[in-house]
């Protein structure tokens, strides 16, 4: 039964992905092979926590968290025009009503915003979008099922205790240089 529901969710995701509207999903797929982009998928194993030490709430929060996809565009002298084009594409996608913006900060040169998909108690996706004129931009999608504000607080408490396995983020280091 469980596998069936997983397949159903996958099929649903595919359907959403095939939708003609520009979506982040599509944007990620289209650009993950592009050499100007760096794509990283992070699984919950990055947290490297001892499951037996978690409280019941923490374990529940961890289960609601699925994976994290990161797509980053590295700016260099040659791709200035493309950077502007890609940046406005992402901006346009995030303008969709589906992405409810929580907060943002920054200036014209750089900035970051946090949005989410779903409703208050059943959050399916968080989108963190950060950009800096000199370096490029990054979009982080945190995917899960039925995440809620309490589980997020619990996730933060897990993060504090975890020994982050940064190996998974290696490709991004290049970006920071």
């Amino acid at each position: 039964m469980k596998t069936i529901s997983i397949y159903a969710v996958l099929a649903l995701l595919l359907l959403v992905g095939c939708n003609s509207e520009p979506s982040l999903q599509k944007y990620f797929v289209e650009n993950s092979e592009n050499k100007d982009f760096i794509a990283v998928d992070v699984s919950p194993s990055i947290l490297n926590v001892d499951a037996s030490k978690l409280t019941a709430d923490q374990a529940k929060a961890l289960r609601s968290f699925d994976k994290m996809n990161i797509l980053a565009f590295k700016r260099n002298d040659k791709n200035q025009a493309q950077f502007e084009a890609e940046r406005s594409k992402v901006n346009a996608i995030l303008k969709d009503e589906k992405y409810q913006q929580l907060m943002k900060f920054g200036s014209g040169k750089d900035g970051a915003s946090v949005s989410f998909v779903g409703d208050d108690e059943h959050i399916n996706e968080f989108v963190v979008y950060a950009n800096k004129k000199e370096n490029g931009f990054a979009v982080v999608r945190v995917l899960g099922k039925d995440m809620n504000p309490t589980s997020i607080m619990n996730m933060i408490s897990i993060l504090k205790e975890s020994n982050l396995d940064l190996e998974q983020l290696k490709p991004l280091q290049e970006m920071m240089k």
Partner: protein
Amino acid sequence: MKKFVITLVVVLMSSPFFAQGAFDKFDGQDDVTSIIVNKKMFDLMSKVKMDASDKEAQQYLSLIKKLDNLKVFTTKSTRVENEMRAASEKYIKTAGLEELMRVNQDGRNIKILVKSGAKDSQVRELLMFIEGGKNEDTVLMSLTGDFDLNEISVLTDKMRFPGGDDLKKATKGSKGPK
């Protein structure tokens, strides 16, 4: 005459938009740093289950539920500072804000204004304008919602935002304007 009517119509039509985002033009400018927290964020934060015995946390949650939007714009540019001052003065007139207090500290003017609700201590909007000084940012902050002035001190304790200390002085023990 006709021209006058058209102008009047245009002004009347556009005024709600002004009221909506009197300061939105500062968002995204190169020399302005902005922080915008939307109602959704406060909604989500208020849904976090916290220890019911922690009185301070409960106070904090009950305040957050009543907040709508927080907008903070800071700049170092004099040009933008002048624009901000003009925009806020205009907004104060159109939105009917009342001055809560004015401080002059080390040559920097700090103005705190509120838009009162049904009761005196009930606030629909809190606006703060801090003039820039040497190497100091100009700060324009607007907080909307439906909250009690006395509750704000809980927030200033928890969050470190510019002018928080002055705000605390303004709200502590006071029962609102008048």
